[in-house]
């Protein structure tokens, strides 16, 4: 554990530096007095103030959050069902096509999915279940389609490591399949479903390409706004925005991490207790 681990350590350190240097530089320069993103002019909160007054930007942020929430819920429901099917339903007639359709969005270039969905909405604008105007609902539908594959992968992976004799035991004790799912499977895969939800939420919040294709002329999501702002010229407001997002995410992750490690410690204690009191 000597020479090899130094190479590994270097790779780790370099990799994390690579990942975090841009983020750190943005955080630092969000407090920059001067307008120039790269020259430090002194400490100031003014860009945060300007951000708060930037109406369109805030509207776009709220819209993106709403779409992301709806997307995450829809993707979690459909994706969990798909994960359940792939992990538990064995062989059925259209399984290969089904499996292909579910995993393809994971790798499909976004320009293709975006284009195809836009063409769908245009072509079928008259049909009842298709929204007439392109806007919130079209973006949400597109995002759900994109993100449900991720939920499926997470849920399917969790289900395949779960002991399925639990479900058999429940059935053996008289529970019908639907009851088994809600009473036994669901509580156990709940953490996986939650990470799926978060994943879908993030992907939706962050998506530019598909949103641009499927949004109507009047709709602006946050990434779309950022993209057009960047094209016009860099303003440090963007740095402030990024810092706020990083802060929120970090806080959230820290809380989740602490609560999970506390639960884990408690669990270890319980197991020790049981072993010690061995009857």
């Amino acid at each position, binding site marked *: 554990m000597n020479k090899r681990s130094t190479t590994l350590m270097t790779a780790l350190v370099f990799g994390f530096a690579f990942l975090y240097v841009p983020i750190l530089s943005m955080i630092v320069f969000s407090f920059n007095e001067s307008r120039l993103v790269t020259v430090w002019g002194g400490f100031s909160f003014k860009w945060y103030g300007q951000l708060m007054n930037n109406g369109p930007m805030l509207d776009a942020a709220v819209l993106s959050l709403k779409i992301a929430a709806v997307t995450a819920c829809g993707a979690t429901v459909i994706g969990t069902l798909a994960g359940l099917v792939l992990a538990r339903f064995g062989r059925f007639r259209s399984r290969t096509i089904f499996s292909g359709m579910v995993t393809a969005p994971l790798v499909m270039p976004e320009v293709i999915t975006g284009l195809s969905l836009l063409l769908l909405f245009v072509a079928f604008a008259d049909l009842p279940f298709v929204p007439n105007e392109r806007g919130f609902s079209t973006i949400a539908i597109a995002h759900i389609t994109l993100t449900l594959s991720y939920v499926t992968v997470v849920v399917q992976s969790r289900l395949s490591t779960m*002991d399925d*004799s*639990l479900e*058999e*035991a*429940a*059935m*053996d*004790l*008289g*529970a*019908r399949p639907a*009851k088994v799912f809600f*009473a*036994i499977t669901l*509580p*156990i895969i709940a953490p996986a479903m939650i990470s799926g939800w978060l994943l879908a939420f993030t992907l939706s919040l962050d998506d530019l390409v598909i949103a641009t294709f499927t949004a109507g002329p009047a709709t602006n999501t946050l990434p779309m706004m950022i993209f057009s702002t960047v094209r016009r010229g860099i303003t440090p407001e963007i740095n402030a925005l990024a810092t706020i997002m990083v802060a929120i995410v970090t806080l959230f992750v820290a809380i989740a991490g602490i609560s999970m490690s506390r639960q884990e410690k408690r*669990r270890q204690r*319980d*197991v020790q*207790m*049981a*072993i010690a*009191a*061995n*009857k």
Partner: protein
Amino acid sequence: MAIPAERPGDAPNQGASPGKRPTNKQTPWTDDKAQPYIRIERVTKKFGDFVAVNDVSLSVYRGEIFCLLGGSGCGKTTLLRMLAGFEQPTSGQLFIDGVDMSDVPPYERPVNMMFQSYALFPHMTVEQNVAFGLKQEGLPRAEIETRVGEMLSMVKLQEFTKRKPHQLSGGQRQRVALARSLVKRPKVLLLDEPLGALDKKLREHTQFELVNIQEKLGVTFMVVTHDQEEAMTLASRIGVMNQGRIVQTGTPHEIYEFPSSRFVSEFIGSVNMFEGRLLEDEPDYVRIASPDLESTIYVDHGISAASGATVWAAIRPEKIEIATSRPLSQQNVAQGVVQEIAYMGDSSVYLVRLASGKVVRVTQPNIRRHDEEAVTWDQTVYLHWHPSSPVIVTE
């Protein structure tokens, strides 16, 4: 406790194995008029080309503890799962208390299963685990509480009702699993390797507890195991399985002392096999010549085989005696040299090499604490056995 009968067809033993009061219903399988509680009729299960269970027919009677015994891959677990409803037979039928289970899903069968991994619901307490099955029946809350309480007292877990599975030891979890499957008062309880995960002392203790509970509740048990000791202790009858077929059914005594084939005699316990040619075949005795022995084997009962046929004489290690001087008899004797001695505490195992090169395994109880004249390594010894000891098998 296993129900001992001297020979198949004999009247039930009135003498009592320790701790068991003899009843008249001890051996229902010998009664022509008894209706089997579980009837497996020509059941086959194929997974693609692989035949897991091959044309198995079996009858299990009410109140029995029946053990399916076999190595891994012999089909015993598949058969059990078919009874539980988790697999469907490719052909054949299963009847429980006279009802055909062909289209009945697992949640509607009067059968409960105790899983090898216990399968306790990790997010529920002990109480909730045990109550789960009763809740599915829609019983009133008061009744559920009473029955759960009773069951938990029976398995001696009354103080652990609020604990979760990860807060319990292995033995405690097993008792919860048992309570959970018995609280519904099923007609049949299926047990998949029930004692496999327990250490030796706990295993012995649990074996007796299981039998006690079964007697108290009168549930028919069907156990699947690869452990002979477990089968011998628990079962009223054992079904030995090999490659998807049941090769012999009988009480533990019958299986051990009257194996019907080479496979069964070699599978249960240890055995010495002498291959030989049938010299004389009379109704009341048989003489066999074996290349491994200088003397002939004389067996005091007749067998049905063609004269001159090749047979095997199976002699259990504990039925062979070791002597330091040559016995007078001309038959059922062999001379050899002691190659290995394994001291087991209560008994010793001797590996004796005969002149033909064959190594015979002999076990003897250590009657004396310290014996000056005990048999030792490289000593020339004489093995002999009673004419009733060998069992002749033809395949």
